[in-house]
């Protein structure tokens, strides 16, 4: 194979550890090396890969070239304006370590810090503050994109520019993002004030989140195994950054300290361990742990935003068959559809630890960007081939019919033809690709599977 001398063969899978394929992986140390690799890629094309946190096959390219960006990890911050310029492979974790001591924070963080800034652009990631601050793409001021012909373009952060709108949320299919400049937000301390409260069922959880804009960060952890009157019972956590003045004296000395450690590594487990019984017990314990009366606590940023980052490789807990995450969004008014989908997950007893429910604000304008105004639910599930296929196909159709969509960074099972029904700007996206990459150099296993 002609690309063998560019990199090394490797079997790659996503965070879900499913559907591995083999590709040639190269790890460039400069933008010039990315350009040269792209121009030498064979007929199977190229896709960029960061830290592999997409659940499915978005950062795989079977038989082709995969550009691992993680060696490109330089970060610079203008401490006056809060503008950050980071190479594509810089992780949000590393960026936070640079920003927090200087009083800044990333504008958007997902449930893990182990994502690259390139991945943040490709998936147009969101966090608990989406209803207030939007997705990552809305904070991007400009980016460097290496195109199909190897040329490096500077793309201004303007959603009126089709190339930018196609790249934000474009799953790496418009080119390899080499560098991103984005606006950081102020955070005087590395602590968050957190209000925790229970919601007895789904209706109450939705009611509490519907109009709330007092908190920058809100999320509900929902128990999908609870039935009857308690179906959809949740624990809501609502947070705001703490100023230095608001911090108690005991924490003043290390107000901006950010040094979270990974304490444990999860061992590989037999797949049967996560079953409705064990998960039900866990969920019960967790619900009772939440205060009966709403209570406010002070939490570190690591604890509040990234509880699972404390356990390395927690995806191994799901055993050999792997896991998948099902995440959809449906419009705000489609609460009946949301309820129906929660009921369906409940009825099939697809064992899952807590699912996450959240209200999104308006979308960014990225053609394939996932977040759009409405309710989003994300649920981790162990892979059980025989039991699940038909259920997900039906749920996908219901989500699409309600005007909703599936998050491509989580998708691992969607069928060809569904993306067309979920992403109304897919045709604009295809037009941009036809224009800048007519021979289809940028391709992933996911883009092949879905026919993007």
């Amino acid at each position, binding site marked *: 194979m002609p690309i063998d001398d560019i990199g090394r063969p490797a079997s790659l899978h996503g965070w879900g550890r499913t559907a591995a394929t083999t590709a040639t992986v190269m790890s460039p140390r400069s933008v010039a090396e990315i350009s040269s690799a792209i121009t030498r890629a064979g007929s199977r094309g190229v896709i960029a890969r960061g830290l592999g946190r997409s659940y499915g*096959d978005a950062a795989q390219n*079977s*038989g*082709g070239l995969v550009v691992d960006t993680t060696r490109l990890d330089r970060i610079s911050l203008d401490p006056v304006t809060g503008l950050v310029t980071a190479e594509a492979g810089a992780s949000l974790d590393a960026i936070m370590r640079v920003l927090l001591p200087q009083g800044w924070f990333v504008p958007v963080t997902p449930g893990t810090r182990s994502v690259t800034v390139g991945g943040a652009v490709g998936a147009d990631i969101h966090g608990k503050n989406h209803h207030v601050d939007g997705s990552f793409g809305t904070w991007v001021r400009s980016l460097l994109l290496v195109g199909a012909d190897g040329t490096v373009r500077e793309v201004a952060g303007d959603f009126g520019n089709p190339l930018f709108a196609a790249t934000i949320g474009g799953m790496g299919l418009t080119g390899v993002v080499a560098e991103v400049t984005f606006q950081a937000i102020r955070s005087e301390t590395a602590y968050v004030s957190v209000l925790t409260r229970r919601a007895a069922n789904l209706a109450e959880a939705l009611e509490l989140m519907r109009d709330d804009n007092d908190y920058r960060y809100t999320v509900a952890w929902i128990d999908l195994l609870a039935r009857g009157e308690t179906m959809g019972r949740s624990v809501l956590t609502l947070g705001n950054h703490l100023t230095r003045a608001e911090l108690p004296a005991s924490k003043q000395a290390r107000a901006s300290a950010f040094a979270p450690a990974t304490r444990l590594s999860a061992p590989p487990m037999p797949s049967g361990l996560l079953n409705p019984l064990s998960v039900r017990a866990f969920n019960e314990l967790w619900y009772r742990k939440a205060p009966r009366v709403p209570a406010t606590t002070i939490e570190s940023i690591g604890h509040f935003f990234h509880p699972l980052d404390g356990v390395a490789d927690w995806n191994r807990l799901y055993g050999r068959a792997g896991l998948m995450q099902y995440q959809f969004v449906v419009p705000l008014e489609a609460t009946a559809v949301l309820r129906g989908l929660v009921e369906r997950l409940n009825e099939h007893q697809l064992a899952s630890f807590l699912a996450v429910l959240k209200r999104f604000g308006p979308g960014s304008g990225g053609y394939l960007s996932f977040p759009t105004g409405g309710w989003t639910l994300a649920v981790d599930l162990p892979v059980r081939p025989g039991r699940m296929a038909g259920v997900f196909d039906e749920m996908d159709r219901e989500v699409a019919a309600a005007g909703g969509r599936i998050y491509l960074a989580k998708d691992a099972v969607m069928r060809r033809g569904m993306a067309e029904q979920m992403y109304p700007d897919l045709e604009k996206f295809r037009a941009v690709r036809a224009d800048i990459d007519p021979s289809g150099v940028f391709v992933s296993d996911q883009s092949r599977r879905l026919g993007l």
Partner: protein
Amino acid sequence: MKDALGRVDSVVLLGGRSDIGLAVVTKLVAAGARRVVLAARGPADDAVAALLAAGATSVDTVEFDALAVSSHAGVVDSIFDKLGDVDVVVSAFAVQSAQEVYDASPTAAADAVTVNLSAQISTGLAVATRLRAQGHGTLVLLSSIAGVRVRPANLVYGATKAGLDAFGVTLHDMLAGSGAGVLVVRPGFVSTKLTEGLPTAPFATTPEAVADAVVGALAAGKRVVWVPRVVGVVAAVFRVLPRPVWRKISA
């Protein structure tokens, strides 16, 4: 592309009228496969209609003559060029006559070897090249318990299956690290139009049972599957029987 649940999208059947092959492809379509190419000699209209009814969105047919080995690489390439990535290739074509027919006509025996072995190798190597290049996909080869230890009563057919089995197992090893692989299927006696009029054997099975086993083995990523499973145990015994005993029971 195979998805997280092991469902596939595109399937090729070499030997487009094979009972077992069609049963496998039908089950794959029922499990989610959508695009099918049937390579057969002459029309396969009934199979096309059945697969469309089972949920396939496209079923194309390609002319394929197992005896014309020099055409095989071209046929395989044209199928891959047409489908794009191919997730599963089921290579199911074979001929089988009673041993007396081959005794009377060594030419017929040579043709059986051409179809059951030479053509499987000429297509199999061409398929392997394309699977290796795309970095994923499985070639399904239909071996047989008849090839595990060849009986005199089934000499020629058994010899072709012994050769095919060795080819398949080793081709899988050759593809190691490429992302592609080979699934070798070893059924007991299968009641099909191929075996009509032949004496049945113990542990007889059906095309549907073979298809279920193949679909399960594909999802699980196995490289060998026995159908029914007990045949694997029987074969292990057959392999170690002393020759005089084997002659006696296999006659």
